[in-house]
């Protein structure tokens, strides 16, 4: 990898990148260096430490999605420059060992007074004819001036609503995002639910199993909040909203949670309706290891009750399902969880260009539920 610090000017950055490429080509004895880029990725980091974390995550992401990455972060307080710029370029050796695919990284650390300037630099550095993704790694500053400026450059914004501190207060900002025309939104909290949604759906495959969906009357989403604070995480809220949306339940109103296993744990519940049917969705803190959603219990009306369970395994690497149906042996299943690392989740989002309509609809329902959540 070659890197250098350069004056703050998009033209000079491009010039420097060309120099780095030439340097890489001179080092290579195996013929021309080929450059392959599939997208532009703008990454906003909340501080210098986050820049380091994000840069480490970018390496494997860029190897899946060759791109120009522009990493933007707040400047260090002691910095004298309004914008500090660094560029680096590196090559990947292909399987044949004699050809290379390039990647470029431009880092811009900007003071708050330079937000407009840094956004204009980013605009100038964007490679033409390629999609632009904005990965916003600071959920707290969603909607800020810099976010507004950078999101105008992007076709898709990647956020992680799991980072929101106060769902009740912050959720409307996420909801507002998806209402912006021309901007698609990826939410990593929603992406983490893919395995859960898939397994829950599989529990009801086939006409015999699907009939239980009509009798479903209670869903409990058990979660384990990050850092142990008793507050409902975004993914638990999204999962509850998803089930309600898929089954056509609306008109929610808060009700008292039925079971609260620990005295100080967070718990919240709603009752939703569809014609004469009622569905109670309860989110509650559990004791299972892990963070985010750790188990889902679905119970159906009838005697004896049919119960469907999906839960994270003790080692956190798998998901177990259980179906207890009247007159049948309990059916169990264990599968491994899909890769939920940030690298993998972001990589997957970079494969998608269109809007995720289902997410947007689920988000709307989650927004209707969110006011019932207690503030942190």
């Amino acid at each position, binding site marked *: 990898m070659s890197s250098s610090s350069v004056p703050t000017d998009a033209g000079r950055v491009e010039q420097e990148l060309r120099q780095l490429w030439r340097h890489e080509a001179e080092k290579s004895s195996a013929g021309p260096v080929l450059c392959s880029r599939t997208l532009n990725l703008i990454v906003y980091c909340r501080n210098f430490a986050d820049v380091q974390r994000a840069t480490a995550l970018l390496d494997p992401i860029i190897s899946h999605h060759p791109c120009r990455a522009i990493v933007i972060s707040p400047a260090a307080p002691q910095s004298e420059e309004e914008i500090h710029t660094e560029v680096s370029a590196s090559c990947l050796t292909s399987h044949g060992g004699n050809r290379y695919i390039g990647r470029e990284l431009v880092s811009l650390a900007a003071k708050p007074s330079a937000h407009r300037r840094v956004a204009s630099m980013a605009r100038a550095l964007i490679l033409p004819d390629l999609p632009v993704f904005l990965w916003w790694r600071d959920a707290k500053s969603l909607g800020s001036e810099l976010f507004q400026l950078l999101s105008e450059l992007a076709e898709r914004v990647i956020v992680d609503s799991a980072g929101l501190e106060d769902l009740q207060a912050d959720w409307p900002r996420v909801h507002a995002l998806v209402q912006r025309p021309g901007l698609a939104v990826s939410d990593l909290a929603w992406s983490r639910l893919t395995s859960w*949604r898939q397994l829950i759906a599989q529990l009801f495959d086939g006409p015999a199993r699907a009939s239980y969906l009509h009798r479903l009357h209670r869903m409990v989403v058990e979660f384990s909040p990050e850092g142990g604070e008793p507050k409902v995480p975004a993914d638990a809220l999204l999962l509850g909203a998803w089930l309600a949306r898929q089954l056509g339940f609306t008109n929610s109103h808060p009700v008292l949670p039925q079971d609260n296993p620990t005295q100080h744990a967070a718990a919240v519940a709603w009752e939703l309706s569809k014609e004469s049917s009622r569905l109670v969705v309860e989110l509650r803190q559990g004791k299972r290891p892990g963070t985010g959603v750790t188990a889902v219990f679905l119970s159906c009306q009838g005697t004896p009750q049919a119960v469907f369970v999906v839960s994270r395994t003790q080692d956190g690497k798998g998901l177990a399902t259980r179906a207890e149906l009247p007159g049948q042996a309990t059916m169990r299943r264990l*599968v*491994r969880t899909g890769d939920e690392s940030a690298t993998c989740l972001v990589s997957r989002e970079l494969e998608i260009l269109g809007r995720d309509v289902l997410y947007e609809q689920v988000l709307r329902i989650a927004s209707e539920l969110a006011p019932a959540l207690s503030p942190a």
Partner: protein
Amino acid sequence: MAVLTMENPLREGIRLERTPDPCVMVIFGASGDLTKRKLMPALYNLWRERLLPAGFSVVGFSRTDMNDAQYRAAMKEAVEQFGDQGPLNGEAWDNFAEGLFYLSAHPGHPEDYASLASILEEIDRQRGTNGNRVYYLAVPPSSFAGIVQQLDAAGLAQGEKGWRRLIIEKPFGHDLQSARELNQSISKVFHEEQIYRIDHYLGKETVQNLLVFRFANGIFEPIWNRRYVDNVQITAAETVGVENRAAYYEESGALRDMVQNHLSQVLALTAMEPPASMGAEEVRAEKLKVLRAIPPITGDRVGSCVVRGQYGPGWVDGKEVPGYRSEPGVDPNSKTDTYVALKLFIENWRWAGVPFYLRTGKRLPKRLSEIAIQFRQAPLLLFNQTPAEQMSPNLLVIRIQPDEGISLKFTAKQPGPSVHVRSVTMDFRYATSFGMASASAYERLLLDCMLGDPTLFAHRDAVEAAWGIITPILEAWANRPAPSLPNYAAGTWGPAEADGLLQGGGCWRKP
């Protein structure tokens, strides 16, 4: 493409994943090599990746005397040996194995099919498989018709509840006549849309990507024709010899074993017209048109358009290997072809006059399968400082295995005051570009069958059309003396006579 279980509203919007209805796969030949090496590892991988439904079950049907527990243990050993997971996580495997059942049975005994019916009904009850069945015939083709008739007699081939599908493995006959007879006997019991003729080549990522590459990019299709393409070379090379398949291979040979199915299917995908949609029927119809547009090579033309070979002793990958006739189980005077190269033409407006060269062989220097599209040379050599022979034509290579990917060779100027040009290659490889392993061909195809998507399976008409190309060659070979065999050393690219097939002093690619 397949329709998901629409009665389950929770399925809507789960992107990227397709999961079939709960079903039972009945494997005939359940203790055989194919089941151990390919089917069970593929099914277990699909299960682990959450691509199979919770109630998915397997019933092994075989003569070997075993019970459920012994079958589960044998399959665990097979998945550990032939799968890519290494030692199996006990809990995950146990969970999968709960859906494995075994019936020690004879494929010719009607009472065993009655037992099978009882087991299937019980599984339906306990595991919610709802009458959905896949019958996988992992047995020699000579057993196909008998098993199909027994399934019919036992009322297992059709049913009011659920769907029934049949998977059969190649060879689909040994010539046109036998292929027709086989198709007729099966079609008396199963409708064509229930029959899935598996060709694992078509499950490979690059073969599927061929359609995307051709029909999702605007720049290739306009030059994908006789005006711009000089020739097409399709190669399927193996480094292995006959291994433990001598009995089969002695009867088959390379032409039947590879060209009739794998290579003809790849050829059809390479040359077909854009289908009206990517629906199975539309894609298969276009492939069929290609095969029907290939005039059979008959009579004396066989000598000038087809070269057959057989390997002698030699060195492959640093190891000395015996000749074909010295392999265990092979007739010391065998005339069986272990190599074949053909020159074919497709008589339609797109391809008239463009030779398609197909070759396949055992004990060649490398294991690889690829399609190489060689474009016509630039019409005028303007760069006099570069020798004409250095001006190589553009070449598009689609690698099917290993290192699935696509590369394009083009010419560029070397930096400097003089105009010296050289060829450079632009490479796209699945593994590096997407950084993820593709599902195995069997995983993809088994899943497609369970989803009811026959796009990547051979239609009866295509099988018969391919035999229509191959059978006249087999007949000509039978009626004329074989060349002096063996005629190529193991570890070489086949007999020298194969070079004579290429027009205009061209040569085979040496990948």
